[in-house]
């Protein structure tokens, strides 16, 4: 058994196969990075919507809360299918990669909104009050006072989330997006040993994810205890 795998090694680790896998890995990374950055931008808007004051903004607050609570309770795979079928149903022309990106943003914005909310909640109301009394506008308070303090609460879970997302993008393989997992399936159907193929794919995911989770853990230790500075 082992002989067969070993005999396959030179045939598998060819330049062509490696480029194929690395390109797919690049796509996994791209989806993660774009998904998390757009997710954070949208998550920020969602949190802002949830914090609007007064009765006039109540519908917006409810909508944002509903969005966040809903999309954190639907499996990523199901979201991907809904986006795919909705786009087909309405006859938009969007590439499979585009479909995956939309699905990723829908779900990552909901999770990011929660991370951002926890970060902002860690800043005491008195900081807002103090700034308001000094005639800071809401955005000015956000920029000069709240964000510079909240980012250290937001960053560690953001890294944990990104690591989670690298892994979740594997589900985009079901749509046919040529990311790392899909590349593994392709090579496997070409007759390479599944042990070799999926073993390699697992290692490549690990290479992407491990440094980030270490960085996140380091940041958590680094940023957690001290305040200010």
């Amino acid at each position, binding site marked *: 058994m082992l002989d067969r795998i070993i005999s396959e090694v030179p045939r598998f680790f060819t330049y062509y196969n490696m480029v194929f896998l690395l390109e797919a890995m690049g796509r996994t990374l791209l989806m993660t990075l774009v998904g998390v950055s757009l997710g954070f931008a949208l998550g920020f808007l969602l949190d802002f919507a949830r914090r609007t004051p007064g009765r006039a903004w109540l519908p917006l607050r409810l909508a944002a809360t509903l969005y966040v609570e809903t999309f954190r309770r639907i499996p990523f795979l199901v979201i991907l299918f809904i986006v795919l079928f909705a786009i087909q149903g309405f006859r938009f022309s969007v590439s499979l990669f585009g479909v995956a990106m939309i699905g990723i943003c829908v779900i990552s914005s909901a999770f990011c909104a929660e991370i951002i909310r926890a970060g902002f909640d860690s800043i005491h109301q*008195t900081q807002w*009050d103090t700034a*308001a*009394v*000094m005639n800071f506008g809401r955005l000015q308070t956000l920029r000069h006072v709240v964000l510079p*303090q909240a980012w250290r609460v937001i960053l560690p879970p953001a890294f944990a989330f990104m690591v989670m997302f690298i892994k979740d993008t594997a589900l985009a393989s079901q749509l046919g997006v040529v990311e790392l997992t899909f590349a593994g399936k392709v090579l496997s159907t070409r007759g390479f040993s599944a042990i070799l193929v999926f073993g390699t794919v697992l290692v490549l995911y690990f290479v992407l994810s491990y440094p980030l989770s270490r960085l996140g853990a380091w940041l958590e230790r680094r940023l957690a205890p001290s*305040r*200010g*500075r």
Partner: protein
Amino acid sequence: MPHLAVADLTATYPGTDKPVLRDVSLQVEKGEIVSLIGPSGSGKSTLLRVLVGLLPPNSGSVRIDGEAVDYTSRRSLKNARDRLAIVFQQYNLFQNMTAMGNVTIAPIRIKGWRRPEVEADAARLLAKVGLADKHASYPDQLSGGQQQRVAIARALALKPEILLLDEVTSALDPELVGEVLDTIRVLAADGMTMLIVSHEMGFVREVSSRVVMMDQGSIVETGPPAQVFDAPETLRAREFVSRILRH
């Protein structure tokens, strides 16, 4: 014309129906130092919060130099906040900024004043509150008394006409109270109009031109310190004074 005139002010915290302020009327002349005293929960701090627009009043009026403040109007509120400054019990320094940053942020970013002048003025103010050597310190590197003095310098940097001090020594260790009171004495000597909420009765007696006693959201007695402390007219005032003097 009084510098600050409050008439029939009533306020209620959101979600409750018992007013925390009932028909409060009060006048502060230019350069006068008025102290608010009374048991906790009597509405002293709430009055200051209403004045700076952190709690909207239900009814009544507030006038600064005769000009009415409309707390529902953003522009009017902004104008009032330009003229008033408040220092809080818990200092509330911005944790992400140095002492210098705390004092200069609003003049530079909000008022748009020029940085060199603002920084020179901030250095002067920090020296005045005795912190000339702490410009680069962050709040968590300063003692409570030092933080409170930075907060006072920060309030003054905006060049307010009227300074509101909300129990500025209550959160401090006893040995740090003196340094903050000294700072306020310096301001009093400068002729700043001040409205002070304090539990430091000796200090109140020494610096105040007038003392206002509150209880359950209303003013129960007003007068010069000697009168309020030594010969209070109302029964409630007498009870409060005898209680605090026993301690």
